[in-house]
């Protein structure tokens, strides 16, 4: 660890934390996950005390299994509750990194898509860049009330059927915000991981400031996207660990994919996470515990022959490097 690394910090909801203190990081999880609009639905109850209790339980379980830091990668418009996360972090001792950003297009409010101008031109990249940048430099918003601590990363996503023009504005805006603030970008791709990554790289953001999520999707693996993303120098997030469904690899295949990437020399580009939804409102979410990677998947990796060092690198060193503000 050089002197530079020793001084690195990461933006958590309780303020900057020395990067070495993060411990094991789950880089792509959700704390409170609310489909935009569900907060107004007559049959959705948002009981913050109850939500706190549920999340605190899950975070303690994560910590109990050796977890140190949770990244809430839901962005600024999917239920993010910064004050609740501050209280959760204080109570459980788990570092919480919250994110700015939003996407894909379908998840945006009309303010960004059909503004009160004639014609109603959707927001360009520069305006998204400004919106996201301020969430890092001035703090994350509690809508219409106040700003709190700095966002630790910018997240965005492309439409599954393929990146739309507004998705591209979101990607470019996210890349510019990352470039100007030093926090990383986390993307979820549409129908082409490498092409979507290239949009970010086209903004001159160094590849090692980018994590591509969802690379345990079958369609991505089928075209060799995980290896190609690693070759470009970006982080490869295998971030549905524990999920067994039609769209994703199973854990057995995930283990093989990790081993393959390590073998190819990309051990320092791999990230693991479960996309657990701590509390979901307006959608089903999942019952995945944040501790799943530690409790269940890491032992599978070791059984496959990965060294303790390899596993440590994936769970601790790689996310630490990614999240360190540059």
């Amino acid at each position, binding site marked *: 660890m050089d002197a530079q690394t020793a001084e690195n910090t990461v933006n958590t909801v309780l303020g900057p934390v020395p990067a070495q203190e993060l411990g094991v990081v789950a880089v792509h999880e959700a704390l409170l996950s609310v*489909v*935009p*609009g*569900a907060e*107004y*639905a*007559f*049959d959705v109850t948002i009981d913050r005390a109850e939500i706190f209790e549920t999340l605190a339980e899950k975070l303690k379980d994560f910590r109990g299994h050796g977890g140190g830091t949770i990244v809430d990668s839901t962005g*600024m*418009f999917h239920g993010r509750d910064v004050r609740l996360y501050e209280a959760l972090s204080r109570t459980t001792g788990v570092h919480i990194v919250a994110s700015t950003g939003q996407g894909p297009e*379908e*998840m*945006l*409010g*009309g*303010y*960004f*898509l*059909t*503004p*009160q*101008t*004639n*014609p*109603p031109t959707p927001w360009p990249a520069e305006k998204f860049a400004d*919106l996201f940048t*301020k969430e890092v430099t*001035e703090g994350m*918003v509690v*809508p*219409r009330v106040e*700003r709190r601590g700095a966002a630790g990363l910018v997240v965005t996503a492309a439409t599954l059927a393929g990146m739309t023009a507004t998705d591209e504005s979101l990607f470019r805006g996210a890349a510019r915000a990352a470039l100007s603030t030093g926090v990383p970008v986390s993307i979820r791709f549409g129908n082409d991981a490498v092409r979507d990554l290239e949009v970010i790289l086209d903004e001159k953001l160094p590849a090692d400031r980018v994590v591509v999520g969802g690379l345990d999707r079958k369609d991505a693996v089928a075209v060799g996207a995980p290896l190609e993303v690693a070759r470009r120098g970006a982080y490869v997030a295998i971030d549905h660990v524990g999920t067994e469904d039609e769209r994703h690899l199973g854990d057995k295949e995930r283990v093989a994919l990790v081993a393959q990437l390590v073998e190819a020399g990309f051990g320092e580009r791999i990230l693991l996470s479960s996309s657990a939804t701590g509390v979901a409102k*307006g959608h089903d979410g999942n019952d995945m515990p944040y501790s799943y990677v530690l409790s269940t998947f890491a032992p599978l990796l070791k059984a496959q022959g990965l060294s303790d060092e390899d596993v440590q690198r994936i769970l601790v060193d790689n996310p630490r490097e990614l999240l360190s503000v540059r």
Partner: protein
Amino acid sequence: MPRVNTVLGPIPAEELGLVAVHEHIGYGMPGSELDTKWWKTPEQRYDETVPKLRRFHEYGGGTFVDATGICNGRDIDYYQSLSEKTGVHIVASTGFVGGDTALPFFARASVEYLAEHFIHEITVGIGDTGGKAGIIKVGVSRGGRMTDLDKRIYRAAARASKATGVGILTHLAIDAENAIAIFNEEGLPLDRVLFGHVDDGVNADKTRDTWIAEQGGRIGFDTFGYETELPDPPFWARPRKERLDHFLRFISGEGRIKQVLASADANCSPLGWPGVKGHTVNYIFEDLIPDLRAAGLDETAIKTIFVDNPADFLSIKN
């Protein structure tokens, strides 16, 4: 006795008085709450709003209908405090200004779910405020044609209107053939629908106001005051005289004065846009009613437009 849902509870229709039928305490596109550029302190919001409502009350205004949709910054407990403190009755909306202001949760919802949601807000209440919606807002998304989502919202609104007896108020009356087809399919009498913004500067030419009236719909000239004469007019502004002439021409038709409503669509304190300086709900008293008198309308006609028609429209019919 006919009753009307206000944010502070049902009132007899007889108590509504003069009604501003399409107004906004504060409107913002969904997502604008994330942009600090528009944020206002609560002090500022009350400061911009209370004097306008007080003046409205002093002028003889009775009821302020807030046509702000579910995701547009609608804020029921705030309206309740405003109403309680100023004495102005405030009627709130369920529904959406247009499909393009419905957030993903509702955009993905079925007609059945949307109807259930609207009915809940009308009969049980909005959130945990206890305030019930008194009208259903629907509208046409930007682009001039009803989208599939717009149509689902219209259909759900028709069902909720039939089930509860509250009326529907539309944002824009373009593409009315599609709207009326839906209302007819659902068996909703068209006098339960106020087709709004027929006088809008962008869309007036494409709006078949007399045809809608012939079908039995109510007609809203409800963007009075958005005039090209303003120092900084919005893109939907229209020359003052042109709008007034349009209105007078419309009500000169046989029986049409019974079908017409008028309002200013002003924001007391806009939430996600700068608003239009100098334009308030009190345009109704300060400009519109004097203009109508000058054009020869008598007090009975004015009462028909601003008191009797809205009372009939807002009364719960079941």
